[in-house]
């Protein structure tokens, strides 16, 4: 709560920092902001192509599912990877100027959110078009997307705070995070729908519960439910998957506050 108050009080600065991030990223590139959309689209294209190629026609993988999954995944990945350098890349700001340290990772998440919203502007018509080809319609529940987006943004903020602070103390973090992300990619339903793991789940039900504890699982599934009407997961495990980040947030904010005190000494 206090963190949110700080963020709100410095909203002007937050926007400026986020703007700096966005502008800096696409300066001097010909396609500029277009890369925001091209890169994940291209990735989604690759996954669809190879899954079709390897899995054959019989595999029930909808293009909308993959596009939704990849775009949402990109949002989280961007927060984590740019979050890593929120402090290490801005040592000057940490050491020489006093501003609430919280703002740096927050601005990173904010700029990733802007990116994601731009991606959604492309995503929604695309999904609508793909569904229309299958004689389906974009669900009216799409209107509820902002709720999930807010939740994912908050979750990403927790991740960004954690990795940004950890990376100040241990530069190993950036390597570990790289590994972690590639593992996470496969244990989250990014390039496959939830039904994909059903076979596994029937054999080891506890594994499915574990799987649903992953907040990204429930987030991505929720995006799909809202847009394509895929079934919502309402198991107890999934509920915990939704809830635990909110509880963990208390610890993350506390730990972050403790950690940031010595940033200037370490950087």
């Amino acid at each position: 709560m206090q963190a949110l108050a700080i963020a709100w009080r410095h909203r002007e600065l937050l926007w400026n920092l986020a703007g700096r991030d966005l502008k800096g990223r696409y300066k001097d590139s010909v396609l500029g902001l277009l890369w925001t959309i091209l890169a994940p689209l291209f990735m989604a294209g690759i996954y669809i192509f190879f899954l079709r190629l390897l899995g054959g026609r019989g595999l029930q993988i909808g293009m909308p599912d993959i596009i939704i999954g990849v775009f949402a995944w990109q949002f989280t990945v961007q927060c984590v990877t740019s979050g890593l350098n929120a402090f290490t890349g801005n040592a000057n700001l940490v050491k020489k100027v006093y501003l609430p340290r919280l703002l740096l990772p927050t601005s990173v998440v904010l700029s990733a959110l802007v990116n994601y919203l731009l991606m959604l502007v492309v995503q929604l018509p695309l999904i609508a078009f793909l569904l229309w080809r299958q004689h389906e319609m974009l669900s009216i529940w799409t209107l509820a997307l902002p709720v999930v987006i807010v939740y994912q943004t908050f979750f990403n903020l927790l991740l960004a705070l954690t990795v940004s602070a950890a990376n100040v103390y241990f530069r190993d973090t950036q390597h570990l995070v790289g590994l972690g992300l590639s593992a996470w990619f496969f244990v989250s339903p990014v390039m496959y729908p939830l039904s994909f793991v059903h076979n596994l789940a029937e054999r080891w039900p506890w594994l499915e519960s574990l799987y649903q504890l992953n907040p990204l699982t429930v987030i991505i599934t929720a995006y799909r439910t809202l847009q394509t009407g895929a079934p919502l997961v309402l198991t107890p495990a999934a509920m915990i998957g939704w809830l635990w980040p909110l509880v963990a947030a208390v610890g993350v904010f506390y730990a972050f506050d403790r950690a940031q005190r010595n940033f200037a000494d370490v950087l």
Partner: protein
Amino acid sequence: MIAIEAQNLGKRYRKAGVGAPTLREALKRTFRRKPMEDFWAVRGLNFAIEPGRTIGVIGPNGSGKSSLLGLLAGTITPTEGSVRVEGRISSLLELGAGFHPDLSGRENVFLNAAILGIPQEDVRRRFDAIVDFAGLREFIDMPVKHYSSGMYVRLAFAVAVEMNPDVLLVDEVLAVGDTAFQMKCLDRIHDFKRRGKTILLVSHALETVEQFCDEVILIHKGAMIQRGPPSEVIFNYLKSYMVRIGMLNVEEHGTREVEIRAVRLLDAAGHETVVFTTGQPMVIEVQYHAKHRIEKPVFGFNLKTGNGIYVFGSNTQIAKVPLEAIAGDGVMRLTINPLTLMAGRFFLSLSIHSWDHSVQYHRQEDLHPFMVKDDSQHKGLLHLDTAWEHRPAL
């Protein structure tokens, strides 16, 4: 009312760097029994500063000045004790922190202003003034990575002085830019002072400190050595402290058949000081002791600037005031009137040697630092008596 208050303020650093750079190091440290070696950048500082005062902080390199400012600015968390600053605090610690090299000067002005907590509305209103102050009108839309370092700092300073803090921290920022820009900077700081802001100024430019500050704090090895009126503290710093802690590259040698026992630098009123004024007299009093009778000794002196430029040297031989002989105690007085040196830091060397220069009895090289302040607007190293004469065309 107190603007800044420090209570038993201390900051400890580990000699091997705080924290561990890698996980491996961290594990190694966890299992190592040996305690870490620490040092205190600042320790046991107690002071209170009333609002509206301008305080200079001086001390040798590594004495903890910058740590102190960091603690006040809130970028460094104290290890022990506490520091309290009343009102909005702003620092001119690192100019241009937060500039993004790829963004244009214009974008960086807004970004930097936001970082410094200046409302965007104010920046929009004052934008032209900022750009003019920096003198960068034609380059304002160029990415700052193409700026020269001087342009970079000028722009940063122009933004920074738009702040309206209650407490302003200044760390050696005046060492940047050309002379003209430095004058503008000093003007702005004067402005802050006039508006009754509390200013903490860290600088090695002692003339500036002397000129600006109401009070000076001398710190060394993280502890406050002295606090008082500028000339007094600077006197102590220059006269005894810098020499005592071996900061100056001073040299003393000679046979000591005649020994310089004490040296006093006196101003027009006969008070001992190290701060002299251009155009006023300066008196150097050398108390010597000759162990036995010395025939035809020569007393000499020279002055060098803080940068080691030899300004002037003379002795009783050259000046044609030879001494027949000396024995026992005595005092040699040298009056320089008027002192034509301009503002700056200088070193005085003294020597007593034989008529033919073959024996150096006692020579003190650069042992006596002093500074000169100048109340006029003139520039340069030496004051020249000048007269202007204008003859209009017939």
